[in-house]
């Protein structure tokens, strides 16, 4: 009787025969038992090693004690690393899988039970770092990121620069095949470098390459301490694959206790002097940027502003000041800077850029906005940590009083000193100032409301309508915005009541596109854990850099509500092109869209989101349909899943 399978497919017999011969020839490939018997006694290969012999056993259960000892790694080095990471209390580790950290990856899964830290599966390293960035700002807790030391860090680079410029801590565990004996393939050679951190060192705070598990323990704890001490920033540890995979049985590792450093405090005499200036000033102005890393930072700025009845301009690097507070005069920034006799900048990214404004003409120049006689004081940690290559430190500004110290901590001192320095005259003047400030604030709000009414029913949907439809449905819930809304004309800041520290987390840091979506997913994870609704106004250009992160949101059931600001192009860049064409007196019609518009064909964001496992709707073109779409999306959010609504919008 003929085997029907062989008869039907004679080539299969030839293939099996040649495969058996091939097995004999290469020797090391495990050989089926029958074939092994057939070739017994014919092989001239040396006897197999103990490990190879163990591998040829059919099942681990049959191994004797000696074979088990020689084959299995009982306590891999990466298990020890998991214990060290756990000692810090890091809840999540965002990864894009890579062979160089297979040891630590496996340990987190099987030794650590994928908890504390829990792995967040990301589809690109830039998304993993962006996610950690948003999570840390929303939760106040540090997150770890794990990636290849070579190609992984190269992918991660832009997002690391954002975190560095934004002074956000995170620990990046990047793995390497340090020695040639661990590079078993061409790929592993390509994924090896003498100094993998070199591609991002210019924008990290610290890095190390520990060569032992004890070294890893001390470097990991030190890394966390350095990352979280103001000025904060990302740190990197290179973890060798051999260190992860070697047997650490019998190796005793003493993990040191994390001893956080206190924040640097401004000089007491300088703070006292500044308090006197503030009390004496006619028109003091407080400007805050990356100040409030915690709710305490916001609270102390409110206290200081109310003590002085001084207007506050919140530049939005953090949630510094309530949008609905009568002293929030951010929309009046330019006239306030011009009229101030004392400006105090707190944790400023660019003090020079507040005092001046760029004039983008053929002969680029700067106008001074502030008066010549203005006194300027700064409080912050920028001068305490600088690197040279990437110049996110901005232009030098010679403040009369530059107080080096953490903004939050130093403002506590300043408030005390202002209370001491307060005079009856100043208190009397404050009464009049309060009424004036409140009146100006109401005018600003009234103008914003009136402006929002213009184009209310227009299609494409105005960004004011988009933001207000959103506000209408989230305002009675515990909510948090995950983006800065710069490209939506800051409508949330102008019209929403943003008055809790968790409701806003600032901007990207280095203005690298591709931050919004990943950081929103990270922030939404923090808000999910805290029982809050996370809301993302998603720019389309940003979406297209990093769409895969929406898969991560779906996979990990992170209920982020994303409303697309779909305006079909890079409008800011289009204006730069218009300026160039204008200066060269040519091509002012039509050409600015070349290279900047991406609406032909129009990306179907709802389809992309759906394909990534995210509930979606749209494109919505009718402004009256935006609200009902948000209602449906919130039902999805309430079930614990992410949702995205694509809305065709006006440019800004």
């Amino acid at each position, binding site marked *: 009787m003929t085997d029907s399978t062989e008869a039907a497919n004679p080539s299969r017999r030839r293939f099996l025969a040649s495969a058996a011969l091939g097995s004999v020839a290469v020797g090391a490939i495990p050989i089926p038992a029958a074939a092994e018997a057939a070739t017994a006694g014919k092989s001239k290969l040396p006897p197999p090693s103990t490990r190879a012999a163990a591998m040829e056993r059919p099942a681990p259960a049959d191994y004797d004690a000696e074979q088990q000892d020689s084959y299995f790694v009982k306590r891999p080095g990466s298990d020890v690393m998991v214990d060290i990471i756990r000692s810090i209390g890091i809840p999540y580790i965002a990864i894009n899988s890579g062979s160089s950290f297979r040891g630590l990856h496996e340990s987190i899964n099987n030794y650590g039970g994928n908890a504390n830290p829990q792995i967040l599966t990301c589809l690109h390293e830039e998304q993993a770092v962006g996610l950690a960035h948003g999570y840390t700002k929303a939760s106040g807790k540090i997150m770890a990121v794990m990636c290849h030391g070579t190609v992984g860090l190269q992918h991660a680079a832009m997002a690391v620069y954002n975190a560095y410029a934004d002074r956000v801590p995170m620990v990046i565990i990047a793995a390497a095949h340090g020695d040639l004996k661990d590079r078993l393939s061409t790929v592993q050679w390509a994924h090896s470098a003498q100094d993998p951190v070199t591609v991002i060192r210019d924008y990290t705070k610290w890095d190390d390459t520990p060569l032992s598990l004890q070294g890893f323990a001390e470097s990991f704890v030190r890394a966390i301490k350095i990352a979280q001490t103001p000025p904060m920033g990302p740190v990197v540890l290179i973890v060798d694959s051999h260190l992860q995979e070697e047997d650490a049985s019998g190796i005793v590792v003493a993990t040191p206790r994390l001893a956080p450093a206190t924040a640097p405090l401004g000089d007491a005499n300088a703070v006292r002097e500044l308090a006197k200036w503030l009390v004496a000033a006619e028109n003091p102005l407080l400007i805050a940027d990356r100040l409030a890393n915690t709710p305490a930072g916001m609270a102390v700025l409110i206290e200081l502003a109310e003590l002085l009845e001084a207007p506050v301009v919140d530049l939005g690097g953090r949630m510094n000041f309530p949008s609905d507070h009568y002293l929030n005069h951010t929309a009046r920034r330019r006239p306030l800077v011009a009229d101030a006799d004392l400006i105090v900048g707190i944790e400023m990214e660019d003090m020079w850029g507040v005092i001046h404004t760029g004039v983008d003409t053929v002969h680029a120049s700067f106008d001074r906005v502030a008066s010549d006689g203005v006194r300027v004081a700064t409080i912050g940690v920028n001068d305490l940590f600088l690197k040279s290559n990437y110049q996110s430190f901005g232009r030098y500004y010679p403040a009369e009083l530059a107080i080096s110290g953490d903004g939050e901590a130093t403002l506590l001192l300043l408030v005390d000193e202002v209370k001491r320095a307060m005079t009856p005259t100043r208190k009397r003047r404050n009464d009049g100032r309060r009424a004036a400030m409140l009146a100006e604030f109401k005018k600003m709000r009234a103008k914003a409301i009136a*402006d929002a009414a*213009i184009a209310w029913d227009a299609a494409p949907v105005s960004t004011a309508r988009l933001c207000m439809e959103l506000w209408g449905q989230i305002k009675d819930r515990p909510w948090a915005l995950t983006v800065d809304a710069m490209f939506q*004309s800051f409508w949330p800041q102008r019209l929403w009541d943003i008055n809790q520290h968790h409701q806003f987390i600032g901007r990207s840091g280095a203005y690298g596109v591709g931050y919004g979506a990943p950081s929103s997913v990270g922030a939404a994870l923090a808000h999910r854990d805290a029982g809050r609704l996370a809301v993302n106004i998603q720019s389309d250009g940003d979406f297209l850099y990093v769409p895969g992160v929406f898969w991560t949101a779906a996979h990990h059931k992170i209920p982020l509500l994303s409303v697309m600001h779909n305006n079909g192009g890079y*409008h800011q860049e*289009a204006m730069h092109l218009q300026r160039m064409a204008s200066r060269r007196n040519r091509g002012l019609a039509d050409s600015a869209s070349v290279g900047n518009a991406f609406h032909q064909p129009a990306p179907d964001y709802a389809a992309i989101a759906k394909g990534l496992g995210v509930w979606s709707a749209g494109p919505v073109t009718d402004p009256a349909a935006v609200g009902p779409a948000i209602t449906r999306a919130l039902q999805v959010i309430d079930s614990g899943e992410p949702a995205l609504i694509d809305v065709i919008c006006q440019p*800004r």
Partner: protein
Amino acid sequence: MKAAIMHHAVAALLLAATAPPVAAQTQDAKAGETLFSRYGCMQCHNNTGQGGQAGPKLAPEVIPYESFAAIVRAPAPRMPAYPREALSDADLGRIHAYLQAMPAPADPATIPLLRERQAAASRR
């Protein structure tokens, strides 16, 4: 007083006599909408000229053509200049007509989402 009234009446009649007919105005406004987009005005001022973070409001309260043209030809530093060779007076007039054709905005008090904001502001 009487003379002044007469003067204004005559001026109004002359203006009416020189103003383009409504159909032409509508046509200009329609062409102006396309030009508003082609010349990138909407990039900063948004599609209906309501303005935004990047550019000021142009409509529905539109400044007179002469002032409008003067700004477009020699604008403030952040805006690119549009010389006559690039944007003719006729086309600029059409853009102006488009902005003038914008309807008056709704009273915020008639929009529930904005009325709620008005109420919140008045409580402060």
